[in-house]
């Protein structure tokens, strides 16, 4: 081949490949524009006032995933009428939780060179009280029952060639003092009764018992543990094995969690289990599908969790005691919270 032939070949290839790339980008851009259009069969969503202290019945707050102008906004429905019209707050969050008049909202912020993330503490009217930079992609958020403490977990990833090692950073903030524990991994770990150190410790999925105690997942050496955390002593003590994304029942006696079960497909390894902390016995729930969410206790006996759905995810419920069957509570929603 002569030099000219080669250059012409290269030019043609650049034009061809450039067109393919441009079409791919335009296609994706068009698809994202579609998401701003309301679906005909989707839930009704109207802008309105959302309050964590609403007096008209018990509210259920969710991140609305239904297509339309209020996509990704925190919306509210009456807890006893979850299929009804949704009231949108205008506040966009990736992850959300609320209790006792305090909300925690993990959101992305568009930057010049890349998106960044932040954790915003909200008051009862979903107005910002304070915000903190978050180190990575948000995944879990919780508020303590008193509303005093908030916790969140983000994913960070290494950036070696074609290698993606994920790790987590979990932060806890006291909203009375705005003091932040940036990384729970600095707590002392007591594993099986002995102090434990490792570089590969990851902690995620905090669930609060009160303003001093909490539970979370600790992972190290390819094993996950339920740990009980104590702010006073700054310790994490292992309680049980094979527990991810714990969620403490309102009476503090049971933990709902993701258990990695034997024999399950490696891309769908988790089932929803409940651990009784008094007897340390595990029981499976009637939900047999793979679960990848930190479940929420709707009341003392019912669990609420997200499963993949047509527009991202839907919310489902199942009794916590292993009886009954799972049923869909609402479509196109994620990150639920009962603020009271």
């Amino acid at each position, binding site marked *: *081949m002569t*030099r000219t032939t*080669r250059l012409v*070949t*290269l030019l043609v*290839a650049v034009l061809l*490949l450039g067109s*393919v*790339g441009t079409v*791919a*980008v335009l*296609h*994706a*851009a068009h*698809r*994202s524009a579609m*998401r701003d259009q309301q679906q005909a069969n989707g839930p009704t969503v109207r802008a309105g006032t959302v309050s964590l202290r609403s007096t008209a019945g018990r509210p259920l707050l969710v991140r609305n995933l239904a297509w339309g102008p209020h996509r990704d906004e925190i919306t509210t429905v009456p807890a006893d009428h979850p299929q009804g019209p949704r009231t949108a707050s205008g506040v966009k969050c*990736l992850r959300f939780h609320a209790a006792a008049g305090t909300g925690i909202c993990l959101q992305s912020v568009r930057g010049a*060179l*890349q*998106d*960044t993330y932040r954790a915003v503490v909200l008051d009862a009217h979903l107005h910002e009280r304070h915000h903190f930079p*978050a*180190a*990575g*992609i948000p*995944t879990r958020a919780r508020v303590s029952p008193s509303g005093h403490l908030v916790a969140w977990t983000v*994913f*960070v*990833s*290494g*950036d*070696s*060639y*074609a*290698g*993606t*090692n*994920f*790790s*987590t950073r979990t932060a806890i903030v006291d909203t009375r003092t705005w003091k932040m524990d*940036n*990384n729970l991994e600095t707590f002392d770990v007591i594993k099986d009764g002995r102090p*434990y*150190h*490792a*570089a*590969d410790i990851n902690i*995620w999925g905090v669930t609060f018992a009160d303003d001093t105690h909490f539970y979370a997942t600790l*992972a190290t050496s*390819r094993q*996950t543990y339920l740990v009980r955390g104590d702010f006073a002593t700054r310790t994490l003590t292992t309680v049980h094995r094979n527990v*991810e994304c714990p969620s403490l029942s309102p009476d503090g006696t049971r933990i709902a969690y993701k258990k*990695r079960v034997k024999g399950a497909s*490696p*891309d*769908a390894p988790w089932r929803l289990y409940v651990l009784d902390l008094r007897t340390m016995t595990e029981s499976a729930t009637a939900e047999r599908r793979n679960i*990848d969410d930190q479940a929420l206790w709707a009341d003392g006996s019912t669990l609420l969790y997200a499963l*993949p759905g047509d527009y991202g*995810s839907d919310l489902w419920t199942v009794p916590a005691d292993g009886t009954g069957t799972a049923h869909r509570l609402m479509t196109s929603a994620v990150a639920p919270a009962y603020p009271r």
Partner: protein
Amino acid sequence: MYLAESRSTKATVVPDTRPGRRPAAVPGTVLALGTVSLITDISSEMVTAVLPLYVIAGLGLSPLGFGSLDGINNGVGALVRLAGGHLADRGGRRHKVVAGVGYGLSAVCKPLLLLAHTLPLISAVLAADRTGKGLRTAPRDAMISLATEPEHRGRAFGVHRAMDTTGALLGPLAAFAVLRATVDGYDAVFAVSGCVATLGVLVLVLFVPRHVVAPTGAVPVPEPARPTLRDALGLLRRPELRRLTACAALLGLTTVSDSFLYLLLQREESLPAQLFPLLPLGTAAVFLLLAVPLGALADRISRRRLFLAGHGALLLGYGLVLSPWRGVPAIVAVLVLHGTFYAATDGVLAAATAGVVPAQHQGAGQALVGTGQALARFACSIAFGAAWSLWGGRTALTITASALAISALVVSFVLRSADEVPS
């Protein structure tokens, strides 16, 4: 700045094939290979940059507890690299073919990501991608060696590594631009990345000669017999190569992986977690800036000496992490030393290897030294992780730093005696 640089390198891609012209300062083949690496790195870093977001936000999966998405274990990776080097030498220098297969395999993997929606599948695609990288690394370095006059190899490898790093820095920016033009446009990122990777393969096919020959190799070497596997293994009987491999491995055993170093730096400095992603950028920027000047310096003084000096910079970096000096200047100093370490060792080791391996074994020789170093670094990672568990990160680094100091002393002795061997 990077964009301008990439354009200017593209303009000089065409190899200098016209007869009667003064040989270019850096051979056209090296610039062509550098361009291929630059384009390929843009493509692969586009994927790497969005993959976590895609997995977590796009697919809604929790990657934790799954372990790493690295996809390929280090033993297999080492075998692939050795095989790539050997296959390239066989059949009278099939470097371009083997490298082309490696680049092609990685290019095919990008659109495959559009179809992989579960972690095991994504992991399998990444494993194939890494296999492609393993296959092409040694033949590519062999071609750089063969295309360059021995006295300029350090600079040639420096130019290649600088172009490679430029691509790695541009990739995330390109991916972000695509994401910005769309919403959740991960599929668009993978599609564009596939197009870019294809372009890289095409530049290889069009602009890298099938048989790489030295620019002023006035004496045409008769085509040697096909090197057999036994010949390749016999390379280890060459004392110079054995010494170099042993030294690279010994120093590799005391080279803490980047992620551990950054993690420790962040902990020691109490660096806000959101600044963590800037640390690798700092190292890469310094590597990019210093790769060419240090490569040229290696050509003037000894490559082995510079390789050793690079590890001295690393040792100094460890010392700074352990020292009570805190604050932004300390972090910057550590990153400068870390980037200097890469600039003084990465391409320089390849250049040093090229000098102790006969032309028909360049692929196998490059694979051998590179693999020895990679496996040693992997062993160091395991040991470092274990030491961290037992005694904490600071102590683990103190031990590693001491081991590095001892290794460097041993290596300086071994390589000095090697220098006395007439070559």
